[in-house]
């Protein structure tokens, strides 16, 4: 017995143990019986063999991205959450127009050129030629992209009578919140590669809206096929688009796989495979980034930013964000319909401590909705300070009972505009305790959370908004106008006629100065009514491994992997 044991012993010592970490076998010598000692050697041999070498990626041209939760559909038209946008907008589809990520100007996308009539009512688009759709195992396109696809994509959400309008729920939150279906009069097909869109009233933000992540171009031929087979709902679960990647397979709560679209009409240097590894916990995403199982991760938590910048194998991209994190009160519910109560709640909370504790100083203080990065930023906007005594007086004036309980809904997921809503809720809870209000914190799974929010079951909610285009209207209309309530983007359920009038009026002129004046009046109205407490405009971060290039932060929404590759 010992003979064999001895032989193995030498073989272990002579074997080159990977890495320089010498492993002293000697300390296992104290197992007394020969069999025991032999057992120990075999065990540590197995363990050592397995521990060989750092994680080496066999399949080199594959990029793994750790996303934070499951997309509801693979079509951003149907859902405003950034998870769906990340998973589909820039990967699977293209848009008529695109934003330049650096300066926000509008560039050409599928539309090679466009013409705006001087009365601002008709827009004509000249389309790109020979743009191929995806060829997958569930659909093979016979023709390339043309005007029919554009008309199909727009009419789907515009016309209630469209065969595909009711498919998969039939609500299009982004477009409903902007009321775009009321502004577009008609979409005409001039010829195979030219489309003309006429509006009822001029809308200076229309072009910007066509470039957002939500206005993607679907395949009309694929839709036709599905209608014939009788499974129209598959269009949003098994997507077909013109984007840089094709959809391969999706396993809920686990992963999404994409394969490169070989004949994509733009030259890209992206990887052959793209994998979204769904990891809900931020600390788990961070760990996977460190061990190299993920090449890039979504929404790093604020506390880890310092750790990333210290490590040399990780890089951190940073950009001032076009977003707003706020604490919205459900104005449709008593007592939050009384502005006094809302002002008292805002006065009772110290915004600076929230910024320090939750954003760890990596965010700018929000006075009103518009962040400093936008041209419509109003630096001298009025703001309520921290004054608990005044808050208590206001509450007594409003006739609120001494021991008043309310709930606050905290988002379970991480977002740039609010990296840790749960923690912020706990801080607010201790502040409200001081003025005699008990606050209970409620949280659900992200999709259920948003469903219940649209139903208005909440008293107040900690949430925020990511801009989709540089236009300030993209903050005011979806967040606070009456149309936005049914679509679920107006979390404060606040409907104020003269506020809507102001926002509508701002759209009519595209002269920046005049629009700034109108938005100034809107800010004063908001300050008086205070339907929500603006908290912060956070910087946007993107953490990734150092050997990944071609990735940049797009302030206007979803992440794109078309030019992302791994340096050898």
């Amino acid at each position, binding site marked *: 017995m010992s003979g064999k044991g001895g032989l193995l012993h030498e073989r272990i010592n002579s074997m080159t143990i990977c890495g320089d970490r010498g492993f002293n076998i000697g300390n296992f010598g104290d197992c007394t019986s020969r*069999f025991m000692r032999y057992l120990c050697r075999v065990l540590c041999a197995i363990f050592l063999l397995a521990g060989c070498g750092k994680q080496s*990626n*066999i*399949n080199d041209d594959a990029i793994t991205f750790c996303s934070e939760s*499951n997309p509801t559909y693979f079509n951003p038209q149907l859902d405003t959450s950034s998870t769906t946008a990340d998973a589909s907008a820039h990967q699977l589809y293209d848009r008529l127009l695109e934003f330049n990520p650096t300066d926000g100007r509008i560039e050409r996308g599928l539309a090679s050129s466009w013409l705006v009539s001087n009365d601002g009512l008709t827009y004509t688009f000249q389309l790109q030629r020979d743009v191929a759709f995806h060829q997958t195992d569930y659909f093979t396109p016979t023709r390339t992209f043309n005007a029919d696809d554009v008309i199909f994509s727009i009419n789907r959400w515009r016309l209630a009578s469209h065969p595909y309008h009711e498919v998969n729920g039939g609500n299009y939150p982004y477009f409903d919140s902007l009321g775009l279906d009321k502004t577009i009069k008609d979409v005409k097909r001039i010829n195979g590669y030219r489309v003309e869109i006429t509006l009822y009233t001029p809308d200076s933000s229309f072009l910007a809206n066509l470039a957002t992540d939500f206005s993607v171009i679907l395949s009309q031929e694929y839709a036709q096929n599905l209608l014939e087979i009788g499974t129209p709902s598959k269009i949003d679960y098994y997507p077909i688009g013109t984007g840089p990647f094709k959809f391969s397979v999706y396993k809920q709560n686990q992963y999404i796989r994409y394969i490169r679209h070989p004949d994509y009409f733009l030259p890209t240097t992206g990887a052959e495979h793209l*994998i979204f590894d769904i990891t809900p916990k931020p600390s788990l995403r961070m*760990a996977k980034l460190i061990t190299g*199982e993920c090449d890039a991760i979504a929404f790093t938590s604020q506390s880890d930013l310092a750790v990333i910048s210290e490590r040399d194998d990780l890089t951190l991209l940073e950009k001032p964000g076009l977003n707003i994190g706020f604490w919205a009160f459900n104005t449709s519910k008593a007592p939050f319909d009384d502005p006094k109560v809302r002002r008292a709640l805002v006065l009772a909370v110290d915004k600076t401590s929230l910024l320090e504790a939750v954003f760890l100083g990596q965010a700018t203080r929000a006075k009103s909705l518009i962040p400093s990065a936008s041209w419509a930023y109003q630096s001298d906007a009025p703001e309520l300070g921290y004054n608990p005594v005044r808050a208590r007086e206001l509450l007594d004036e409003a006739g609120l009972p001494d021991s008043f309980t309310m709930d606050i809904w905290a988002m379970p997921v991480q977002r740039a505009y609010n990296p840790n809503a749960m923690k912020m809720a706990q801080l607010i809870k201790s502040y409200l305790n001081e003025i005699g209000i008990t606050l209970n914190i409620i949280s659900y*799974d992200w999709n259920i959370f948003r469903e219940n929010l649209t139903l208005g079951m909440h008293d107040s909610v900690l949430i925020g908004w990511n801009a989709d285009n540089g236009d300030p209207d993209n903050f005011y209309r979806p967040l606070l106008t009456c149309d936005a309530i049914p679509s679920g983007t107006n979390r404060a359920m606040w409907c104020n006629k003269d506020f809507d009038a102001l926002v509508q009026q701002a759209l009519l002129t595209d002269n920046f100065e005049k629009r700034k004046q109108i938005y100034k009046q809107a800010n004063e109205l908001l300050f008086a009514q205070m339907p929500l407490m603006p908290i912060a405009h956070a910087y946007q971060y993107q953490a990734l491994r150092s050997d990944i290039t071609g990735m940049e932060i797009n302030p206007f929404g979803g992440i794109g992997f078309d030019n992302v590759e791994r340096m050898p």
Partner: protein
Amino acid sequence: MIKLFIRYINLMVITIFALVLLSFMLPFFFPGDLLTNISGITPQSLEQRQALEKAFALNESIFVQFQVYLSNLFAGDWGVSSVSQLNLYDEIAYAFPATLELMLYALFVATFVGIPVGFLSGLKHHNPADMGVVTFSIVGYSFPVFWLALVFITLFCLQLEWLPMSGRIDLLFEVKHITGFVFIDIILSDLNNTKEAIENAFRHAILPTLSISIVTTCLFIRFTRRSIMDVMQKGYIIAAKSRGFTQWQIFIKHSFKNALIPILPILALQISTLVTNAMIVETIFSWPGIGNWLIQAIYQQDYPAIRAGMLVVALFVLTLTITLEFITRAIDPTKDETARAAV
């Protein structure tokens, strides 16, 4: 033998029936709309609601509903998850083998490390190695599994960066899901780099298996050591020694079997703790098993999934425990068969 077999069969049938009955009654207790809890589909329109009610015989008596439920159960139509609208049968068929696999690894380690070490330390119960084993076993099975997993992750994944920390295999390998057991799937789905895939899957399996197998191994060690030490004091061992058999002969012929028989039922009970630990560890290592799936279902309040998942796991654990008990009773000659089939 036949009498014992019949007794165990009827015990199995009673328990399965009780479980199916329990899983049938669950939706009535779950909050929210009964129809969604049963079928998973939230009826959009009125006539869809009527169609569903007729399909599940909700307006008839309980027995008819139970009958409908049973026929659906055997037909494999377990309803649809109310969150992801995916067929539950396929979801469970996808998730369950992963937990089974993790459990088998841990059981393998526990039996082939726990029992021999238990025997060895029991036989040599007066030297330092035995003291070491005893303290290791007490410390071992008082570790909270989830904390042990976290410590392993911080140590082996983050500091030493030896082992990967999540999932069953690196997502780079496109392993088709055929049987659900990762190693078999790798071999069956002909990859170009099968060897690396197997090595990668092995590295992924080490930490989860280690985290749950330590607790079970230590329990096995403790039971076997106690049992072998009792057996060595017994009269027939001293008689065998007096007949001049070697240590090894005595161990193989007499003490091994006599020591193992009394503890097999207790080891069978460890399976249910093993399943609990496997389900907890899955959430930490994001192992795509049924535990992870069930806990996601709880977070998303996906009641049809909870009901189906609960039924599958409970049935599996129960049948396994009862069969193990039956096997021990069958091969145990010391007691006559008419003794009650006390589980």
